[in-house]
């Protein structure tokens, strides 16, 4: 399998760096399907009963665990395999991620066919989750190395694909289920097989295209700054030393708080819009609202990460926290004055910044810790996403329920949550303000030290 080796992926002279973003998109558009997994939930509750759930059919609560397991394994595998991804190169990582992701679908198809839920937990949840984690971080450091002049834009393009994957997966899955369904069969297993095959082809194309730049390569006309800027280091920090720095944990909280504020709302957007504007936002319109904020989630990933190349990462996060706080405080007022347009406007901006938080963070890490281990450090930072995946929905759902139980009308049940989200963003602002340049003692001093780190990593 030497085809997968990092040495075999070094670009020849004349290779266009603009071929690397589509390679990254090949993997991110596939794994972005995770955001659309909910389209299978309802059909999977009718695998036996077909037209309605039978007593032996799976419950929605049982099916909800599939996505949760996948997200937990995303965070774990990104943290555990980050160093391996960095050393093995992008092609090996993309190949492995594609294989895990596709086989996860095929195993899930067997689970649906045999009506064994544990096989789906294992297939989509564990194996697919590992594919998600490795796939998510696999092109990040490669893109940063190809685009030293615009690292934010480059990683923004790839991570935009993760947001966009659901746009393809959702209508495609519905269409495939329609094609494969019969009066006695809902067609989920066949759809899983078809998706597994499609995603395998896509990820393998990405793995074939991807290249790493030759050592010392720089884009034509680009001269790296002679002296390090205040918050952009010219040194590298060893992956496990990064964990010892306050900067890593401050950025961990910056990401966690930004994601917590967005993720809870993203999951409850449909119900929230209908409950805040009863009779005015129908279920169909609410579905449109969910689509619209997903679109801004994707566009925000590219827009904000590209903007960060111009105004700096720290300032970009300041924008998220200041604008986000103001908008969260405004949301209850949009309900009070009955303005659906203002409500939609607030949330599309909020969600664009939620997406922007994900896509700007790799470049923020590169500025702080250098390019050498940025992929592995990014992998460990993604545990913040897993944590936010628990905090966000719990905050929104439980506070809403508490408000309703206390007699607050449904239309106003989200007000307290919005103010709490604004409070979280204020804490995020403070964490961001505390980020300073990494102390010299954490910098890798020489090539010899880098080599020792590599040996230590290989033994670990």
């Amino acid at each position: 399998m030497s085809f997968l080796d990092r040495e075999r992926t070094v670009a020849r002279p004349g290779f266009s760096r603009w071929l690397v973003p589509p390679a990254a998109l090949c993997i991110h558009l596939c794994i972005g399907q995770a955001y659309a997994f909910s389209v299978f939930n309802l059909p999977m509750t009718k695998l036996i009963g077909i037209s309605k759930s039978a007593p032996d059919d799976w419950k929605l609560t049982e099916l909800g665990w599939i996505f949760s397991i996948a997200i937990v394994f995303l965070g774990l595998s990104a943290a555990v395999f980050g160093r391996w991804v960095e050393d093995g190169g992008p092609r090996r990582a993309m190949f492995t991620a594609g294989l895990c992701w596709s086989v996860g679908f095929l195993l899930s198809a067997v689970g649906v066919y045999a009506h064994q839920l544990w096989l789906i937990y294992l297939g989509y949840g564990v194996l697919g989750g590992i594919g998600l984690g490795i796939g998510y971080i696999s092109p990040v450091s490669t893109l940063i190395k190809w685009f030293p002049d615009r690292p934010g834009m480059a990683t923004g393009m790839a991570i935009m694909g993760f947001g966009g994957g659901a746009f393809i997966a959702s209508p495609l899955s519905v269409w495939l289920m329609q094609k494969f369904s019969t009066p006695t069969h809902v067609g989920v297993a066949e759809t899983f097989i078809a998706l597994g095959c499609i995603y395998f082809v896509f990820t393998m194309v990405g793995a074939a295209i991807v290249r790493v730049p030759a050592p010392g390569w720089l884009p034509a006309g680009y001269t790296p700054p002679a002296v390090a800027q205040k918050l952009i280091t010219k040194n590298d920090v060893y992956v496990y030393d990064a964990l010892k720095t306050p900067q890593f944990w401050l950025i961990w909280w910056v990401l966690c708080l930004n994601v917590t504020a967005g993720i809870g709302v993203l999951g409850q957007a449909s119900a929230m819009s209908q409950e805040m504007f009863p009779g005015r936002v129908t279920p169909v319109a609410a579905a449109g609202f969910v689509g619209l904020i997903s679109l801004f989630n994707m566009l925000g990933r590219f827009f904000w990460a590209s903007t960060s190349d111009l105004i700096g990462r720290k300032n970009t996060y300041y924008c998220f926290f200041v604008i986000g706080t103001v908008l969260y405080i405004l949301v209850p007022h949009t309900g009070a004055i009955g303005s659906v347009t203002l409500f939609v406007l607030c949330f599309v901006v909020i969600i664009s910044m939620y997406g922007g938080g994900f896509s700007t963070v790799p470049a923020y890490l590169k500025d702080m810790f250098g390019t050498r281990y940025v992929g592995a450090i990014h992998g460990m930072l993604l545990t913040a996403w897993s944590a936010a995946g628990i905090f966000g929905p719990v905050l929104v759902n439980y506070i809403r329920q508490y408000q309703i139980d206390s007699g607050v009308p449904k239309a106003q049940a989200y007000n307290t949550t919005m103010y709490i989200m604004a409070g979280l963003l204020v804490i995020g602002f403070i964490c961001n303000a505390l980020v300073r340049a990494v102390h010299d003692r954490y910098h890798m001093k020489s090539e010899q030290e880098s080599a020792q780190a590599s040996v230590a990593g290989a033994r670990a």
Partner: protein
Amino acid sequence: MSNANENGATTLYLVLAWGFVGIPLVWGVLKTLENAMKLFQ
């Protein structure tokens, strides 16, 4: 001549690679926009 051929091949690769990911993405975005319009009807 060889340089011109190389440039042509690179352009072709770029079109193919971006088309491979761009076409499905644009299709998905259009489908989403189609649904999102229902919010304003």
